[in-house]
């Protein structure tokens, strides 16, 4: 009986681990992509636009570039760090740079993460991990037979992290948590000046 319980635990554990491994899809350009369209019945475009704008403002420096195209599209780029973790040991093995797009319309919006490129890290002379190159390798590239397992782990980590980012973004857009924008400190009034 105990063996059956342990077997069940084993299977549950394995399935929990696998549930996090939903791979990224491929778009019409052959690029890896996380793409989602979300319906928001009753919400006007302006409101969705304001929520997306608030998301980017709150994210602050996490996005290295950010631009609004027209009155409905946001374009931004960012990076996520891939950690190589084994029990208590951990170190960054590289970073994945990506573009993040959000487009709003009345009663719906869509967003997608794409143009993933991987930059491996190497240890510098001071023992810190730094990018070994400035030009990334597209994440959908064929890594060759010898590096396939390592490359697949980068793809899996990227899929997992974008899933987490997507959930957080959708949470902001659903406005289930109040958006808190950074508040500017009120200027003190000087009585020395007229």
């Amino acid at each position, binding site marked *: 009986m105990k063996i059956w319980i342990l077997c069940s635990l084993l299977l549950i*554990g394995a399935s929990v681990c696998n549930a996090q491994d939903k791979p990224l899809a491929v778009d019409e350009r052959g690029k890896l992509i996380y793409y989602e369209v979300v319906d928001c019945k009753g919400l006007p475009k302006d409101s969705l636009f304001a929520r997306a704008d608030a998301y980017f403002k709150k994210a602050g420096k996490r996005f290295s570039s950010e631009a609004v195209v027209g009155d409905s599209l946001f374009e931004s780029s960012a990076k996520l760090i891939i950690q190589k973790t084994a029990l208590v040991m951990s*170190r960054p093995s590289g970073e994945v740079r990506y573009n993040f797009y959000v487009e709003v319309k009345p009663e719906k919006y869509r967003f997608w993460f794409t143009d993933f490129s991987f930059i491996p890290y190497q240890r510098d002379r*001071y*023992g810190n991990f730094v990018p070994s190159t400035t030009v990334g390798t597209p994440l959908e590239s064929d890594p060759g037979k010898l590096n396939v*397992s390592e490359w697949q782990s980068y793809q899996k980590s990227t899929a997992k992290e974008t899933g987490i980012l997507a959930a957080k973004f959708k949470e902001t857009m659903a406005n289930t948590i109040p958006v808190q924008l950074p508040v500017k400190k009120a200027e003190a009034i000087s009585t020395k000046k007229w």
Partner: protein
Amino acid sequence: MKLKSLLTLASLAIGSAGYAQETADAPLQISGSVDTYYKYDFEKRSNIPTYFGSDHNSVSLGMIDLVLKKTTGKASFVGELSFGPRGQYQSIPNSDGGYIEGDGYNSFHIQNLYASYAFTDKFSMTAGYMGTFIGYEVIAPTGNYNYSTSYLFSYGPFQNAGIKGTYAFSSKASLMVGLFNDWNVYSDNNGVSHIGAQLMLSPVEGWTAYLNVLSGKKEFDPGTGTVLDLTTSYQVTENFKIGLNAADYSIDNDGAGAYSGAALYLQNSFTPGFGLGLRGEYFNMKGTGGADDESVTAVTLSGNFKAGGLTFIPEVRFDNGSSEMFAKSNLTPSKSASQFSLALVYAF
């Protein structure tokens, strides 16, 4: 009973693996490398005097290098220890007794041991024993494309103990200024004797240049020594990188050990798992006491086969001197030397 134990262990292992994936920032970063090599000198004796990989016709050890790093808020430390010939008796300070420090022997070599504090996003200070800011190549084999090292690396400083402040004007420019001990010592008998600075410029994406200066009077040297160093690299394309190191070291009052030279590095990745790197170097040892300068030209071609954390480096090297600075197998002097080596470097 055994089956139950195995299943319990397996369940725990899967649980911990799942948990490990959730860890975004590890409290303590552990990394390192190991390396080993085989070298064959065509004159059947160790001939080329650059550092590491010195044994002829032997499967020999490099070192195991262990790095710990922890960041807490704005404070961080790095501790890096190496064990093995590359980090001990072939290095500086070393444990062969030739270099006496403290009790005269050490069982390991500290590569880095320092703490930093970032006062702002732009300004940080660091104190301790650090890898030198001079030059292109480093002691850890994971930081070099070629397994054998250049003359510029071998004659330049390995580490500098001191205190330094770094100010980043932007992501394209920063300035470091520091006060340092003599080269390659854990403690300095003649006081904090050197001043150093590094200007980092990155005018375009992919191009980084470091202009370095380190000046001071080493214990027992007749005068002040000054290294001027340029280290730069440019990632031309996704696959092609070019690097350059040029340096001049002068010592007042005709001090011995001065040099100048330049090394060019060309590296190309043909596939994600295979690349070739060519290093061409001209190195000039300045003569003292009226003696002539001696120079050497070295060409090194290295392959890099990568599989996960492992890099296999087959390499050929040809050195040609201005005078008979090498020796043939029968010990007669020779102007040239050449070698072939195979190295395994694993980074974790």
